[in-house]
């Protein structure tokens, strides 16, 4: 099995993408709602990622 060496950002992005796909599929009733909810979850993941990153950066001094 090949090894991959992802950065924090790449790994977080990948996690957000795959999790958003599943959350979108299992949560809503129509395909359009699923797509929109998946995109919404992905956006929330990205927003949380940047917010927490800045928080840690500023908190670290």
């Amino acid at each position, binding site marked *: *099995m*090949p*090894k*991959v*060496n*992802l950065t*924090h950002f790449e*790994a977080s992005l*990948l*996690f957000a993408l*795959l*999790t958003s*796909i*599943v*959350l979108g*599929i*299992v949560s809503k*009733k129509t395909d359009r709602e699923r797509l929109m909810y998946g995109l919404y979850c992905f956006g929330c993941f990205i927003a949380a990622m940047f917010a927490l990153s800045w928080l840690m950066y500023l908190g670290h001094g």
Partner: protein
Amino acid sequence: MSSSSETEVSISKWLPAVLLAWFIPGSGHFLLKKHARGGLLGLAVVAMFLFGIMMQGATFQKAYFDMAEMNPRPDLLTRVITIGGFAANIATGILYTMTAWFGYDQADVAGHVHDYGTKFLVGAGLLNILAMVDAFEIARRQKD
């Protein structure tokens, strides 16, 4: 909560779909003729698991069985993480079974890539649990 349509669906209708969804991610939806959703769910769970393996994430099998022999018992947080991690590993079905069968036994080591790998392996199991619940609800006709 229990409408007449729900109570009419017997266990023989939903149990095969849920068991199949556990053992082969996404296949429960295929059994229920939800091919596109099954394919996407399977793809997401398998991709997350494979990335976890490629990042050399740790599995919780050894830690779980080691914990049972520890004296004194480890603290509550360690127990919750170990038991939860092992349960999430098992929830990936054939993926984890084959991984253990092929002798993959990555210890928990320092480093952000390994750490993400461990989270990806656990995450794959948790996503598959969501897929199993979805298959259950479709089979029980609680959703389309």
